[in-house]
């Protein structure tokens, strides 16, 4: 990593914005690295979770929001459960994703992870519950890799990992209502 940080960066408001938006005090982190140590996704991350926190402490908003890490977070909450300084790291990641989305900042290394997140949420919004075939189809279509992983589809179908039809018994109306409200909250946050 080659960064140059001046005090204008250190004094940038991201830390306070994050504190207000997520209720998490990033200042408290003393960089023990326990979050990164237990993160199941860290093998794929360009910056480990503790590095993301450090970057926020130093005000490096641009780098954080364009990092792939925030999108790779699986929200398994292992970091949150284990943090000795009681910081909800998963919540911070969630906040950063929202902020990156609203600010239209794309991850520098791999924009597909953003696409996947979008497709995933559309999928849930429309079907009320994950409909795998639609998810895969849409993802492949938008990422222009139409036949990616096509060969393992029959095997997954046989092992009942994916179904042919969406689960329609779910109360889709209410789920859409949730999404509608979330959009509104998101738009409110955007103005701030």
């Amino acid at each position, binding site marked *: 990593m080659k960064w140059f940080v001046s005090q204008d960066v250190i004094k940038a408001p991201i830390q306070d914005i994050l504190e207000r938006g997520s209720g998490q005090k990033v200042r*408290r982190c003393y*960089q023990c690295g326990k979050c990164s140590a237990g993160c199941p996704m860290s093998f794929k991350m360009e910056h480990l979770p503790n590095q993301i926190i450090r970057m926020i402490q130093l005000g490096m908003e641009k780098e954080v929001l364009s990092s792939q890490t925030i999108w790779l977070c699986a929200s398994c909450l292992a970091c949150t459960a284990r943090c000795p300084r009681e910081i909800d790291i998963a919540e911070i990641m969630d906040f950063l994703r929202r902020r990156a989305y609203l600010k239209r900042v794309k991850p520098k290394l791999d924009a597909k992870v953003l696409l996947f997140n979008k497709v995933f949420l559309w999928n849930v919004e429309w079907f009320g519950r994950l409909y795998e075939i639609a998810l895969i189809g849409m993802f492949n279509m938008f990422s222009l890799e139409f036949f990616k992983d096509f060969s393992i589809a029959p095997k997954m179908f046989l092992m009942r990992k994916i179904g042919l039809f969406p689960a329609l018994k779910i109360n889709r109306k209410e789920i859409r209502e949730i999404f509608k409200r979330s959009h509104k909250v998101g738009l409110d946050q955007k103005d701030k």
Partner: protein
Amino acid sequence: MKIGVFVCHCGTNISHTVDVEEVAKAAAKLPNVHFATTYKYMCSSPGQALIADSIKEKGLDRIVVSACSPSLHEKTFRKCLEEAGINPYLVEMANIREHCSWVHSDRAQATKKAIELVKLSVAKVSRSKPLSKSFIPIEKRVLVIGGGISGIQAALDVSFAKFPVVMVEKEPSIGGKMAKFDKTFPTLDCAACILTPKMVGVAQNKYVTMHTFSEVVEVSGHVGDFTVKIKKKARSVDLKKCTGCGACYAKCPVKVTSEFDEGLGKRKAIYVPFPQAVPNVPVIDRNACLWFTKKTCGLCKKVCAIGAIDYDQEDEIIEEKFGAIIVATGFKQFDHSVYGEYGYGKFKDVVTGMHFERMANSSGPTGGKIVRPSDGKEALDVVFIQCVGSRDEQKGVPYCSRVCCMYTAKHATLLREHNKNAQAYVFYIDVRAAGKNYEEFVKKAQDEYGAVYLRGRVSRVFEKGGKLIVRGADTLSGSQIEIKADLVVLANGLIAQDDATTIAQMLHIQYDKNRLFTEAHPKLAPVETITSGIFLTGACQSPKDIPDTVATASAASVKALGLMVHDKLEKDPLVARTNNDLCSGCKACYLACPYSAIEMVEIEDRKLKRKRMVSRVIEGVCAGCGNCTAVCRMGAIDVEGFTNRQIMRQIEAL
């Protein structure tokens, strides 16, 4: 001569590698050995009873205990012999544990070695002589060298037990470094508020005699009987007459930079270092005073209504006797001029932690404002650089100074308290906050006072457009950092005083490669020195914060009081002794003695019918190290209990 050999199993510590029964059997066959046996734990009560009973029943007169190191249990067995009615110095220990069973694995070989070791001890004890303990009278007075917080606390603690204390301080006022501080971590109570009551307590105490502006120049003697020469430097003001009205320094026309304010403020040529000084009597700086430099002025003498100013006062040397000495000479700030990259001396706005303390102090030179010394403007962006001198083997000292992390956190807190818009940046390597409420204090500085901690050393400080540009790194994120700072504060480490080695040599105490005084044992005797009767407290031994300093001061005073309550001190007779008939007076022992325990005296030689010089051992000082025996060409000086005859016999027995 009837020697008894007692072989210990030490549970299985010895017996698992050494065949103890075999050792006892072999020992029984040695010359003069009357009886040999084994036991599971020789140091236990039944073990000792076994020895005592055997002495009585079998009429044994010398004992060999074949067990652990004599440093552990020699005393135990001496006591045991004494109670059984024979001279306690007729016991010898064969160390078959540390020297044999613990370091070997071959049972047959180890047993053989153990037998050899027993053989040596039997040979030695057969040449042992009964010795008797000597007693040293104790002078019931304590000397405290240094009038900082540690010296003050030690003096107060000793005086509480109603023993007279003499305190020697080289500065015109007691109080030391703590008097300069603004606040103290981790509670942020004001340093003066908690120190001055103690200073006044010393001044008012009828058991404490203060010699300020004085230095210890010579120490001789030994525990219980130290003779100390104290130089009272000429104050030029009569301590008894002066009322501390302040008329003299109000009128004095000469202004020089104040040492107490670290050069940030001014003082007069006649001055009290700070308003709460104890004693509140001014002193004339003879290098600055017009009377002493040009023989003019003399204003202070004219304005002094009671005639306390005395230009003719001279240095005076007094001699006093003490039973114990407490060394509380304190520390010095590391001289950071070796760090050219931090720009100290080049840029006025690069200051030390002590400067910051004076600036933060409301009675200090800036009236409690954190300003840039160059233009007096308030400092908003302040960079703190930690580990200046500490943990730097190239330019500084290898150790951690222990207090800098804490005082920097305190400064970062104070900065925000003095100015809400100020921002602290702390460059650190590790935050070491091991103490009660210390970690919490540092976290508070970060969480609540917004101090930004950057992990890394600073590479360079340079000036650009009226600001100091600080180039550093943050190794946690792997980035280079640049801060435009108004003020840079260096967290200098703590090092030994300039004259530490002189003091150590004068007192015959040891010091380490960093010139810090060495304790007798790093864990079990942290306030004692190897010279009995001399105790250490405070930062002269190692960097300490105020709580630790006060704790060691109380510890040292308890050790001193432990001596004071005795009328006389028991002394082991294992000391060197000169045979006057053999001594040629060559002085080799006199020069070799690390304790200065040997003096040269003149004796009347009847055979030669003239006077000649011989060496004599001062029993109270001798530690029985044996350096003198080793260097004596005539074999005239011998350490009791380790005589040349005994050691020769051991060599022969091998």
